[in-house]
């Protein structure tokens, strides 16, 4: 088990390194990195000054060395917009996105396991069809469109919920609701399929021949086996939640990492973009390890 996790950790570190190299060369690819880092209306003198300060006139390999060195110290330079260290700006934004993602993911996991399992027991029935249709629509709908339709209905027409900002708990309802839809649609389908497969497994026959009651067969024998493929999808969707966060936070004016990323890109604050990418990569790396541990806890065949 520890061997598996350390293997995965090394693989993830390699991925991180790959990402570092990718970002470095992408930022140098445009010919003049100064144009990326500075505002569009920057003068030639500002650019020259910028190159000298940031060592952009040094040989490429030395630049890369400095870049990696700074990365290890989480030093991504200053945010142009806010005149503060980029890393502080990013961590502040994460303090908003993290609870948003965590609450949403918790709701997604609970809802999709309960509804997916119930649909599987009732396969072919009304409830099963309902869950299938809802989940398909959920997985197919563009989140930005759902978000603005929700604003039209709940904020403009009904005036129940605020359109943007983070002042009260009411502000969280629509972001969570919109962020919930796609991962829920995808995961509930996986739970249903996996549960259906597990319910026909031979060990379920054994349990029935032993005289085990239905509830333990479903929740003790089957669910744990059915969770294995679900865990993988939950991991993928947790990482993909940042895709959703970009959209949802931009629309609802939620001051998290997604909105920060888009604002920084539109306003050419490249240091913040860089810091955001790296912090995100580290967060995903940690999450993957959690997923591996969950896997090992559920399945002894992986542990050994």
């Amino acid at each position, binding site marked *: 088990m520890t061997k598996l996790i350390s293997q995965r950790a090394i693989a993830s570190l390699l991925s991180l390194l790959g990402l570092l190299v990718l970002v470095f060369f992408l930022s140098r690819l445009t010919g003049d990195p100064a144009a990326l880092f500075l505002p569009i209306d920057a003068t030639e003198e500002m650019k020259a000054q910028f190159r000298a300060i940031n060592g952009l006139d040094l040989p490429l390999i030395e630049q890369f060395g400095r870049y990696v060195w700074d990365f290890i110290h989480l030093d991504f330079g200053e945010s142009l917009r806010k005149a503060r260290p980029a890393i502080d700006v990013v961590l502040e934004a994460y303090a908003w996105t993290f609870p948003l993602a965590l609450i949403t993911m918790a709701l997604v996991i609970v809802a999709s396991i309960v509804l997916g399992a119930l649909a599987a027991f009732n396969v072919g029935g009304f409830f099963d069809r309902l869950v299938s249709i809802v989940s398909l629509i959920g997985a197919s709908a563009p989140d930005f469109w759902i978000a603005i339709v929700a604003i039209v209905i709940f904020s403009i027409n009904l005036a129940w919920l605020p359109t943007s900002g983070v002042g009260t708990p009411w502000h969280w309802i629509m972001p969570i609701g919109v962020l919930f839809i796609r991962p829920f649609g995808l995961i509930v389908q996986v739970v249903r399929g996996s549960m259906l497969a597990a319910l026909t497994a031979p060990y379920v026959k054994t349990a029935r021949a032993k005289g085990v009651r239905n509830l333990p067969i479903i929740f003790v024998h089957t669910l744990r086996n059915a969770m294995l493929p679900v865990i993988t999808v939950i991991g993928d969707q947790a990482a993909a939640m940042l895709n959703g966060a970009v959209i949802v936070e931009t629309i609802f004016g939620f001051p998290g990492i997604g909105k920060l990323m888009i604002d920084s890109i539109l306003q050419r604050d490249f240091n913040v973009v860089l810091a955001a990418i790296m912090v995100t990569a580290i967060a995903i790396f940690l999450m993957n390890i959690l997923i591996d541990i969950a896997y090992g806890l559920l399945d002894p*065949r992986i542990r050994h």
Partner: protein
Amino acid sequence: MADALLSVQNLSVDFHTVRGTVHAVRNVSWSINRGETLAVLGESGSGKSVSASAVMNILDIPPAQIVGGEILFEGKNLLAMSNEQRRAINGKRIAMIFQDPLSHLNPVYPVGWQISEMMTAHGRPADEARARTLELLGRVGIPEPENAVRKYPHQFSGGQRQRLMIAMALALKPDILIADEPTTALDVTIQADVLALLKELQAETGMGLVLITHDLGVVAEIADRVVVMSNGEIVEQGSVRDVYHAPQHPYTQKLIAAAPGKGDIRILAPDLPVLLEARKLCKVYGRFTALQDVSITLARGQSLAVVGESGSGKSTLARSILRLEEADSGEAFWKGQDLLKMSHRELLGVRRQIQMVFQDPTQSLNPRMSVYQLISEGWDIHNLVPDRAQRQQRVRELLEQVGLSAEHATRYPHQFSGGQRQRIAIARALALEPELIICDEAVSALDVSIQAQVIALLDDLRQRLGISFLFIAHDLGVVRDFADTVIVMKSGEIVERGPTEQIFSAPSHPYTQRLLAAALDPDPDVQAKRRIALAQA
């Protein structure tokens, strides 16, 4: 009959599939009392497991539907009981074990917990269940029970897993144990041990044993009475001896006649030229030695059998000679040239001369190719038989040669039965006019009656076309019928070799002796004599 402990009476079960309704069993009746052993014998698709599943309430309904009959247990109809009442009987009064214990044990829970659950599910306190689990594991011969309870199913061997299933089934001392093909996936020596264990436990507890099997040998070894099933109906029943010696129904007669290991033993003609000679082949996978200094010689027209249990290295030997796997060291001379040192171009020429027939024709035939494409593919590869009309003619001839007909050429593998598919695979091998055919367990996936037909076909080809055979098998009866020379392998090494006659009548190595002693004869009298001899030894 009516006052038997458990009796199935006129049971009929339909399966509603999307292709229409299949009558899985019709009017099936059998009964069993404590202390008795009843065998339900049948080939695949005969419906032999259906009535037992109905007893245990584990038929999948739908697609299955019980359309008639009763199942009486202590005089009360199980089919009229509530699920809760039947749950109380399952495991406690009637228990069941299955063919494939790996998939029938839950992979994510320790085996100790799974055995204890049998008892806690029926209201026994947890500490009592734990103590009894340890006792049971010791009884069925699992080493170190204290450690074993914490292990998971994948950490045991196949034979041990079946012992665990038996321990679980016997936890509450049921009156009846139903065993569905309990030894089919096991090696012969382990099969013998498991059957012996079942018999001992039956003597201890006095339970009734219902054994579902396709194997006449298992019936002869263990059963008192037998029920023979074919196409969902009981065609014959009676005491094992009566049914074996005086079968009434044509199906039973055919089945008994098809049992392997009764024909004349073949004698190898002397002084044939050597075709293949392998010297000191070695192959190691990590810590596992698959081949250790294995040397064989095969003459033109000879049929050499390689016998061994799983993990003995017999398949690796075949695969190394064919270069499907690269041997670590050694030589393999084909007409004087070393196969293992050949370049790909040289090898291509030899590939025509050596063909292979695999175990499972369902997997060895590409499902997306028609029979015509399958058979003619070799000609494409080797640029043979370019003329289209000539090809069609040859395919027709080959199909007829293996007992199929010309119109089958346009069909696809899934439209054929298992035995027919193996005939197609043989026709494909013959298309290249090989001098040697390697058969890797080529008949072991087939039903006994079809097995006999395929063996007869191979034998006919050998006589008419002079093809040599390297015949990999674990079934001694089949080997006895087909081979003129036998090699016995164990743990990657050859332990004994000699003419078939000598191996079967006077085996010298203890392992060969054990293998022969463990093999089950379909004749209950022969089996009884062996049992006595074994008990005395």
